[in-house]
């Protein structure tokens, strides 16, 4: 298994040269004091070290060993506990947390890069701090002051970890039908009973306490999604002075055997009158969950980018080293028995596809993260409103498009290795198995597509879509005559027009025939993602072009060539997607159930 190297240069390129992150930070009062370019750079540097030096080395062994369950206790793979200690002590869990409770208050555009390194080095491990950060967000937004003071500091510093307990055996996508119950107690607490499944890091031995955020129904709750409340249920109760008290009545019933992320414990959690505390208002639990959903979903997209980057690094190293057959143009390495496979056009096609997706996706993450920062920290209501709309629109794309492309990328990374890609030892197949979950959890990619198409586009008559389309159109108008991007402006404009046309036609077609939304959704999300990446690639070209002239490193010329590959060989997929969408939903809906077979 090749080593992991944090892609710091590309991250700096995005933050400094494409998105002017330091400018944004300086302009936002909530950020200007906590972060400056030097701090950011030091954070990236340190994160790269811990990812490569601490997390990556236990990635493969973690997969092989997996987590072990015995009598309700979960033992993590060798080295995980120590790595978690190091990670927590470095303050990484609370990197984006509120400084009032001990967090470091860093912007998402920076935190996102750190998350990518952590996930790219070890996704199974990375899930634990990711879940904790998510739980902190929900608690921060909706918890009482008392709950926040009691729990947030210990979660930010990693002493305690967090888990999100939503799914039940019969209810995943459709949480409205959950059965877990919460009965009020006299002291203001609640007794929670029920079974939750697929609880990532629901039980383990790395943290002193585990704070579960559990969805349950109060006795008088209305049916459906509007009758769900959110509760904080700690594994160990916490005394007034913050010390740990009695063991709560919750236990891990078993661990799932699964395709990948073996280093992370996927738990069945049983609640048997466990003591819990209401977070936010009764029956508003699902909404409270949605607060952190944007961050979590972006986080899953980031997992995809991390895995894709790791797979690319391995595949590239292999393609340079492995010798096999001669180039069609004659020997390129005549001193060897054969040429390194990187000389072969089809191997390059695979590598460049990986590179284009990974770097494009990283740009996409940074783009969305900046809108998240603006939504959180902007003081101007108009700027905030726009950012909210952009975040709502782009989040499902970031989650689904980036994870779909990440799986493709990891599969290609496996393919570059030929037969060795199928063998565990080399690590490429693990990346495929690990990445496969990202298309499923935190709302399947089909659900993301419905969210985008139904709620975010059709639901408001294309209002959010306009924000995005204007952003791209403004760029096109402003750079019509910019020689550096001349060859791409036209294809970008065509891609935007294609997306806009399709958007309009689906809005129309779904009026009176709601099935058209679901019929278009997945293809539409893919089309949207491609168009957004085309936009970001043009911006990368614009930034790279002036630097390319005197570029001895090849970083900037490499960017230009990758952009060309993207426009020549990836963007054409958008034509196919648009046609498929325009063909409508009849070919799927005409089927009787019996006719399926």
């Amino acid at each position: 298994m090749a080593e992991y190297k944090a892609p710091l240069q590309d991250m700096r390129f995005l933050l400094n040269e494409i998105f002017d992150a330091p400018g944004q930070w300086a302009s936002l009062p909530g950020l200007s004091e906590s972060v400056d370019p030097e701090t950011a750079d030091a954070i990236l540097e340190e994160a790269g070290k811990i990812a490569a030096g601490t997390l990556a080395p236990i990635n493969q062994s973690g997969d092989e060993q997996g987590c072990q369950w015995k009598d309700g206790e979960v033992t993590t793979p060798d080295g995980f506990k120590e790595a978690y200690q190091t990670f927590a002590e470095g303050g990484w869990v609370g990197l984006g947390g509120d400084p009032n409770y001990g967090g470091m208050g860093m912007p998402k555009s920076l935190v996102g890069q750190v998350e990518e390194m952590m996930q790219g080095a070890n996704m199974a491990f990375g899930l634990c701090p990711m879940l904790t950060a998510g739980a902190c967000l929900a608690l921060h937004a909706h918890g009482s002051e008392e709950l926040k003071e009691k729990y947030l500091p210990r979660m930010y510093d990693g002493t305690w970890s967090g888990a999100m307990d939503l799914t039940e055996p019969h209810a995943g996508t459709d949480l409205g039908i959950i059965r877990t119950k919460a009965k009020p107690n006299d002291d203001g607490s609640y007794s929670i009973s029920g079974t939750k499944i697929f609880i990532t890091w629901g039980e383990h031995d790395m943290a002193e306490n585990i704070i579960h955020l559990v969805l349950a129904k109060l006795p008088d709750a209305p049916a459906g999604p509007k009758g769900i409340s959110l509760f904080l249920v700690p594994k160990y109760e916490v005394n007034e002075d913050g010390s740990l008290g009695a063991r709560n009545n919750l236990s891990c019933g078993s661990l799932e055997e699964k395709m990948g992320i073996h280093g992370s414990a996927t738990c069945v959690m049983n609640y048997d009158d466990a003591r819990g505390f209401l977070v936010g208002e009764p029956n508003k639990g699902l909404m409270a969950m949605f607060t952190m959903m944007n961050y979590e979903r972006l986080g899953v997209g980031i997992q995809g980018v991390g895995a894709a980057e790791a797979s690319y690094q391995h595949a590239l190293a292999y393609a340079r080293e492995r010798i096999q057959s001669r180039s069609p143009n004659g020997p390129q390495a005549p001193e060897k028995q054969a040429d390194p496979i990187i000389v072969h056009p089809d191997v390059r096609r695979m590598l460049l596809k990986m590179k284009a997706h990974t770097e494009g996706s990283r740009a996409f993450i940074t783009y969305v993260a900046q809108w998240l920062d603006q939504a959180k920290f902007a003081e101007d209501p108009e700027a905030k409103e726009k950012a909210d709309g952009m975040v709502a629109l782009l989040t499902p794309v970031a989650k689904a498009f980036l994870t779909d492309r990440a799986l493709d990328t990891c599969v290609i990374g496996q393919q570059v290795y030929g037969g060795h890609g199928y063998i565990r030892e080399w690590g490429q197949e693990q990346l495929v198995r690990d990445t496969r979950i990202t298309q499923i959890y935190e709302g399947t990619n089909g659900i993301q597509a419905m969210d985008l198409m139904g709620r975010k586009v059709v639901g408001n008559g294309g209002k959010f879509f306009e924000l995005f389309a204007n952003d791209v159109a403004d760029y096109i108008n402003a750079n019509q005559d910019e020689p550096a991007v001349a060859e791409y402006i036209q294809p970008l404009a065509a891609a935007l027009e294609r997306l806009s046309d399709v958007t309009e036609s689906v809005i129309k077609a779904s009026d009176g025939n709601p099935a058209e939304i679901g019929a278009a959704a997945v293809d539409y999300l893919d089309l949207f993602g491609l168009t957004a990446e085309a936009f970001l690639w043009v911006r990368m070209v614009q930034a790279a072009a002036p630097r390319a002239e005197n570029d001895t490193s090849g970083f900037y010329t490499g960017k230009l060539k990758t952009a060309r590959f993207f426009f020549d060989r990836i963007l054409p997929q958008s034509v196919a997607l648009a046609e498929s969408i325009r063909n409508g939903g009849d070919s799927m809906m005409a089927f009787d159930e019996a006719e399926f077979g």
Partner: protein
Amino acid sequence: MPQYKAPLRDIQFVMNELLDTETHYQQIPGGEEATPDMVNAIIQEGAKFCEQVLSPLNQTGDQQGCTLENGEVKTPTGFKEAYKQYIEGGWPSMTADEELGGQGLPGSLSMVMSEMVGTANWSFGMYPGLSHGCLNTLEAHGSEEQKQTYLPKMISGEWTGTMCLTESHCGSDLGIMRSKAEPNSDGSYSITGEKIFISAGDHDMSDNIIHLVLAKLPDAPKGTKGISVFVVPKFIPDENGNPGERNSVSVGSIEHKMGIHGNATCVLNFDGAKGFLIGEPHKGLSYMFTFMNIARIGTAIQGLGSAELAFQGSLEYAKDRQAMRSLSGAKNPDGPADPIIVHPDVRRMLMTQKALAEGGRAMIYYAAQQADIATRSRDENARKEADELLGFLTPIAKAFLTETGVDAANQGMQILGGHGYISEWGMEQIVRDARIGTIYEGTTGIQALDLLGRKVLMTQGESLKRFTKKVHLFCKEHGDNKQLAEFIEPLAAFNKEWGDLTMKLGSAAMKDREEVGAASYDYLMYSGYGVLAYLWAEMAEVAQRKLEEGTTEEAFYTAKLQTARFYFQRMLPRAKAHADAMVSGADNLMDMQEEHFAF
């Protein structure tokens, strides 16, 4: 794990209604015996065996895997017994020569069995599957004595075979292999070297294992023209033809891999092992290519099987699992939610799998029919023509069906949501197993080079024309049928574009040899969509005709038509992206300096 159910109605549809197998069998030697009744009985029997014996071992085989104990491989519980039943059923000998104890039935019929075996339990199917290649090579190129020694026992299934090609430093490029063969005074050879990725390289199911090993003679020329092939039995047959002395070939280890855990992937060490030359020296690679097409079609089945099994598993789940309400109003008002099959996006995933499984079946059976003609027809011209058509179809079937098979398996897994990721449900196993399909027997990239470089451009496009001519004639014949216009029109347009693009690539390749490798993958995928479009249009024509004539199976034929429609409207457009990419030129791949790929 989905319990496999052989799709007998669809198998019959493709065999009888699409490909008129009855007439076809009457025209090839050995086929006369294969009357419709007999064919039916064989398939029914095979289906029963696959459903009842092999399918239940699929998940346990994955969980247990093979183990290496004291140098011997132990297969998962039940495999040995199942293999015994497989032999007793006479399945290994179906197509072999009657003189050697075979039943002489057409190869295409055994492809149907291979499909059912492979879908029910791919890992199991690889054990007899690998024997085929070994057996065919011996039959075509072995000496009379070798044939007498090995073939009857392999045909009966008592002995199994392997193919030992890959070494740790060479897979796609066999020219650089290192295994050596030293001649002995008795006419045999001492084989020394290490072979890796040897599927079914050792196991406990048969009495002997016959390895076909590629190695170099001391005086061998460099490269691919210096490779010879040897038969190296695990136990050297004694004078009576029984397994005798243990040969010095041993299992170094078995690989830990992503899937197909039930099949032992071995590192085999040959340490002066006794081997016997097959045919002439240095011709090993060309012998291996003799049955490459048929072997690769055998691998292509994995793509179809993955799609079929994933479809069966996810369809059942989609009818059962309840989540959310249909956007057009509750379909299951008495339940807490609607079954997810009402949701358009779930249907999209189901239909994609269905279109690939049924289309893939048509493609495989069609190729198998050509293989029958190519190997058995009395008419030399027909043999030649079928062989060329098969040569064209083979890389497409192998690469396109295994690539789309992985997609289909992923769609099936996706329908189960979180449960899809959990081993218990078996859907993730289908993905893990399917994933090897695009790699072994020549990766997708290698198939693509074979198609565009060797098959299409080297024949100046003739091999493509052979196929597009068929498509053209079909389009012409049904051009007036308005009911079919939605299929015929796009198909005719595609057919024309196919030729145009090929010409374009041909002239580009004359100027720059890199253009072939730069276009090959997209060309192959494009061609796959084209072949499938033709077959779906043919199937739509059958279905439409039956509906018009009147039938008691209206639902079946309507579903066929609808699946064809889905394919044309929702899948065929993907070919456009491949078309654009393939003609975008090699520069966007070759310009990047090697050291600029990452920083």
